[in-house]
C-alpha cells in the first residue's frame, strides 16, 4: 500500500464502511462530517488539540524497552505506553478531539458508550474539562466486571446508565447510545469510542488516534535506530490498533498484526470478528461481523470487556481483505498468562485488552524487533484477574 487510507465520499474503505442508520441521523452525520473536515484542516483547532494532548493527556507517551519481557519472548520487544496517558488508556486522544469538536459545533450534551469503561472515563474526563453534561451507556455485565471505572465516571460527574438488553455488553451499550442520539440528535454529540459506526466516525476516530503511530514510528527510529519488523496491537473495535498501524502504512517492510479475542477458543465463545466473522452491517457500517445463519448478531465473549464485541471497524476489515495487516487471536487463558508475565518481568500491570497482543508475541517464535501497543493499564481488571488466578 503506497497511500494513506482515506475512505471515499460515502465513507467506504473498499467494500466496507458506509452509513447504515435511520434517516433521522443522516442530517447529523452530514453536519458532523462537514464540521470534522473543517476542524481537521483548521490551525486553531489543531493548536488547541495539540495543547490538550500535551497538558491534559500527557503526550507524548514513551516507547519503552521491555528488556526482561524480551528475554521471555525471544524477540526484542518495545512497548508504546498508552497506559501512561491520562485516564490510563489511549481513549483520551479521541475524546479530547471529539469533545473539542462538539464544543465547536455548539452541542450542549455529550453521550458515549463504554465496554471496559476506559472510553467512558475518558469521555467523562473531557466533558468535565469543558463543563458539558455527559451520559455514558454501559452493559450491566460490564458494570459488574469494571466497577472501578463506573465509580470513576460518576466521580467525574457523568451519569452511567446500565443497559440490560441483549448480551448487556458493549454491543448493546452502542445500541442504547444510538437510541439516545436518534432522540436528542439536535443538541447532543455522540462520542463514539472506537473506529466503528457510520461515516465519518471510523475515519474521524482513526485520525484522532493516529498520533499513537506517528509518535511510535519516530520513537522507534530514535530508540532502536530502525523500524520494527512487526507492529502488534489488540483489536476489539480496533481504535488503538488503527492509530498505531496508520503510523506505518507506508512502510511496506513493517508487518502489521492485529490480535483478536479468541475467548474460550475459536470453536467456542469468542470475539474474533475478522478471523471468524462474515460481511454484515452492525452499528451503521458494513464490516466483518459475528452473526448467525439468518443474520442475527451473535453474542461475543472475551474476558476483557474492551474486546467483547461481535464487530470490528471497517478499516480493519479492509486491511484484512487487502492483506496489508494480518490478524491473529489469543484466548482468555493466554491473555491472563501474558498479563502475569508482564507484571513480573517489567513491573507493569497491563489491561487485559493489550495482554492479548502480548500473548501473541510470547507465542510467536520470531526473533525480530517487535513494537506492541500497550493500550491501557490494568487497574480496572484486578478483580477479574484475581478471580482468574485464585488470588
Amino acid at each position: 500500500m503506497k497511500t494513506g487510507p482515506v475512505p471515499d465520499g460515502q465513507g467506504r474503505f473498499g467494500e466496507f464502511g458506509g452509513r447504515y442508520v435511520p434517516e433521522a441521523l443522516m442530517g447529523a452525520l452530514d453536519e458532523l462530517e462537514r464540521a470534522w473536515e473543517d476542524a481537521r484542516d483548521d490551525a486553531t483547532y489543531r493548536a488547541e488539540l495539540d495543547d490538550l494532548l500535551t497538558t491534559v493527556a500527557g503526550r507524548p507517551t514513551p516507547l519503552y524497552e521491555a528488556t526482561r519481557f524480551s528475554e521471555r519472548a525471544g524477540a526484542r520487544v518495545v512497548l508504546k505506553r498508552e497506559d501512561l496517558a491520562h485516564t490510563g488508556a489511549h481513549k483520551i486522544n479521541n475524546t479530547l478531539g471529539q469533545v473539542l469538536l462538539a464544543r465547536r459545533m455548539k452541542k450542549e450534551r455529550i453521550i458515549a458508550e463504554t465496554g471496559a469503561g476506559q472510553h467512558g472515563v475518558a469521555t467523562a474526563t473531557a466533558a468535565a474539562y469543558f463543563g458539558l453534561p455527559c451520559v455514558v451507556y454501559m452493559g450491566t455485565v460490564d458494570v459488574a466486571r469494571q466497577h472501578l471505572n463506573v465509580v470513576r465516571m460518576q466521580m467525574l460527574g457523568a451519569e452511567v446508565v446500565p443497559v440490560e438488553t441483549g448480551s448487556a455488553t458493549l454491543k448493546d451499550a452502542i445500541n442504547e447510545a444510538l437510541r439516545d442520539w436518534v432522540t436528542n440528535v439536535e443538541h447532543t454529540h455522540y462520542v463514539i469510542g472506537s473506529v466503528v459506526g457510520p461515516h465519518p466516525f471510523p475515519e474521524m476516530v482513526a485520525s484522532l488516534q493516529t498520533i499513537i503511530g506517528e509518535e511510535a514510528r519516530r520513537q522507534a527510529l530514535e530508540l532502536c535506530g530502525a523500524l520494527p519488523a512487526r507492529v502488534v496491537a489488540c483489536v476489539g473495535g480496533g481504535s488503538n490498533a488503527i492509530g498505531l498501524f496508520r503510523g506505518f502504512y507506508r512502510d511496506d517492510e513493517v508487518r502489521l498484526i492485529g490480535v483478536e479475542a479468541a475467548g474460550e477458543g475459536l470453536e467456542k465463545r469468542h470475539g474474533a470478528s475478522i478471523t471468524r466473522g462474515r460481511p454484515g452491517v452492525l452499528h451503521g457500517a458494513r464490516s466483518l461481523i459475528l452473526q448467525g445463519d439468518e443474520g442475527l448478531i451473535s453474542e461475543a465473549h472475551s474476558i476483557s470487556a474492551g474486546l467483547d464485541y461481535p464487530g470490528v471497524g471497517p478499516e480493519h476489515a479492509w486491511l484484512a481483505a487487502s492483506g496489508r495487516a494480518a490478524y491473529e487471536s489469543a484466548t482468555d487463558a493466554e491473555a491472563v498468562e501474558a498479563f502475569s508475565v508482564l507484571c513480573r518481568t517489567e513491573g507493569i500491570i497491563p489491561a487485559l485488552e493489550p495482554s492479548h497482543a502480548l500473548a501473541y508475541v510470547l507465542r510467536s517464535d520470531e526473533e525480530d524487533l517487535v513494537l506492541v501497543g500497550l493500550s491501557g493499564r490494568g487497574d480496572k481488571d484486578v478483580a477479574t484477574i484475581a478471580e482468574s488466578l485464585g488470588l
Partner: protein
Amino acid sequence: MTALLEHLESRRAEGHKLLVPYLMAGLPDASSFPGALDALLAQGDAVEVGIPYSDPLMDGPVIAAAGERALRAGVGPLRAVAMGAEPDSEVPRLVMTYYNPIHHLGEDRFCDLLSRSGYSGLIVPDLPVEESENLRSCAADRGLAWVPLVAPTSSARRVEAIVATATGFVYAVSTLGVTGHRDQLSERAGRVVAACREATDLPVCVGIGVSTPEQARAATAAADGVVIGSAVVQLILERGAEAAGSFLSSVRSALDGVASSS
C-alpha cells in the same frame, strides 16, 4: 404502479384514510400469531409484519422486548417471513425489517422470498436512500413496493430524494426518537407531512408515537394515514387479538370521522 400503491390509491379514492397496523411475527406466541394477524388484516388497509432482530436500534422498549421474546421462542427472520405469508387475505402485507438479515440472505434472494410468500412490499428503517439503490431495484423487479422513511431532521433536498424512491407510500416519522407511546402527537408531525406532501402525490402515512384514536385523527388532518405499532403489540401481548381488533376498530372510526368531515 405496484399492487400496494394501487390498493392504497383505490382506498384513498373511496374517501378513506389509511390504517396500517404493525405486528411482530411470532407474537404473542407461534400458535396464536395467525389469529392476531387476522385481527389486523380485518381492520387495516395494509399490515406490517415485523421481523424479530437482535439489535433493533430504532425500537423503544415495547417492540424491542417483543422482539427478544419472539427470538427466544425461536422465531428468527426466515420463520418470521414464513409466518406472515397468508395467501387467503386480500389485504397487502409488508415486511418491516432491519437490514442485516437481508444482507445476509442476499438482496435478490430476500426479495424472491418475499415475493413467493405473497408480500407486497418492504420497509427497512436502517437503510437510508444512499445505501438502498440495489435493494430497491431488486424489489422493483418483483413488483414489491418500497416504503422509505422521512424524518423531522430530513432537509428539503433529502425529502425530495427520498420520496422519489417511494413506490408504495411514504412513511413520515412524526418525531425524533424510537418507536413507542407518546402522550401527545408531536407538533413536528404536521411539518414532516407537509414537506412530504410538497414533494409527492403518493400516500403519506404518519408513524412513531401514534397510539390512540385521537392521535390518529390528529395525524390524518394532513396525512393520508397512520402506522400504529407499539400500541398494537402491547395489546396483543397483554389482552389478546380481540382487544387489538376492537382498538383498531375504534381507530378506524376516528379516521372515518376525519375522512367524512374533510
